[in-house]
Structure formats: structure tokens, C-alpha cells
């Protein structure tokens, strides 16, 4: 059983479009992190959300943590080819342990 479900699994869009990816669970997390991974590299941390209902913005990326701290979303405005990559969410259920979702593969075409 996958603790964190990410959707969609794959997303192919044109440059300039908006998109939202989701990370859902039946479990409560003390915090949730979003990473982006490019081919041949390790995941790179984008943001950590800690408080239920919290919204964080990173340029064109908006991250939201659900009120119940069970789910999260990532919204990208005006996607660019440089946004292409695998987006992973990771939940912290115990102190300093992360469980990852399988990720959403995003392809942004020029």
C-alpha cells in the first residue's frame, strides 16, 4: 500500500499552461516536502510545509498543505520547459523519516 498517492503520474503540457499536481494520503503528516528530480540527478528540495492550510510560494510555484495535514498540492503558473522533471512529495510521519510518493513526471514542451 502506497502511503502517499500522487496524481497525475504523467503530465505533458505546452509552455505557458498552468497545472496542478496532487499528493494525497489517509495519514496525517507532521510536515510535507516537495522535491524536483531531473534525469541522472538526485531529488532537490523545493519547499517544506508544516502547518495545516499553509500556502507557500516559490516564484511561479504555489504549494498548499491541506487543513488536516493529509494532502498537498503544487500549482505551477505559466509553465516553462525548465520546469520539466519528476515532482515528488514526501511526508514526515516520524521525526526525521520521510516517505515518498512515486512522483508526477512533468514534460513542458516549447
Amino acid at each position, binding site marked *: 500500500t502506497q502511503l502517499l498517492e500522487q496524481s497525475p503520474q504523467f503530465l505533458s503540457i505546452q509552455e505557458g499552461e498552468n497545472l496542478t499536481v496532487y499528493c494525497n494520503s489517509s495519514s496525517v503528516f507532521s510536515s510535507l516536502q516537495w522535491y524536483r528530480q531531473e534525469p*541522472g540527478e538526485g531529488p532537490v528540495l523545493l519547499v517544506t*510545509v508544516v502547518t495545516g492550510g499553509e500556502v507557500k510560494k516559490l516564484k511561479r510555484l504555489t504549494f498548499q498543505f491541506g487543513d488536516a495535514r493529509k494532502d498537498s498540492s503544487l500549482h505551477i503558473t505559466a509553465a516553462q520547459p525548465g520546469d520539466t522533471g519528476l515532482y*515528488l512529495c514526501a511526508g514526515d510521519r516520524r521525526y*526525521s*523519516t*520521510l516517505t515518498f*510518493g512515486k512522483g508526477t513526471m512533468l514534460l513542458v514542451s516549447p
Partner: protein
Amino acid sequence: DARVTQTPRDKVTEMGQEVTMRCQPILGHNTVFWYRQTMMQGLELLAYFRNRAPLDDSGMPKDRFSAEMPDATLATLKIQPSEPRDSAVYFCASGLELDRDGYGYTFGSGTRLTVV
């Protein structure tokens, strides 16, 4: 920028051989993780250490895998004997204990292991 260094980047070995993967965490980080990534399973936690002590290795096949931190600058993951199903990318990550500012973890570039 501080980096987590993993060696080797790529390893091809024959079934039954011993494989050792190494990780140099970021200086000052007190938590080290080993993850395995495959297309089917995604990122799976194998082991993690805090202040060099192993805290959780429940995700690791104990009969063939072992993880150690002989000192604060080196973490190792060994597979003996290796099997084709061990083929994956193995990542090491290091970090500080999480707080509300969310330091998160820094991943290395991984070791791509192919067992033939």
C-alpha cells in the same frame, strides 16, 4: 554549495559479487539516509542514521544488505551477494533534524547499479 558526494556514479557487476557504495554527507549534517529508486517502487527507504547510530533499517533486506557509518564523513551500503533484482539507483541523503523552517534533506547524485 555544499554537496552530498556518492561514489561510484555507475556500477555494473555480475550476480553474486559484492558491491560497496559510498557516501560523503555534508559536513555538520547529523542525519544520513539511504534510498533505492526504481520505476516500479519509486523511492524506498533502506536505512537511516542519526549521529552515526543506525535508527531504522527495516526497509533493507538483512540477509544481503548492510549499512554502516564508520565515521561522520562516510556512510557505506554493501550488498553481498548481489542479485539482478538489486538493480536500481541508490541515493544517499543527509540533513539536519527538521524544524519549522524545514531544512529538508540534500540528496547525492546517486549510484546506478546494474547486476547482470
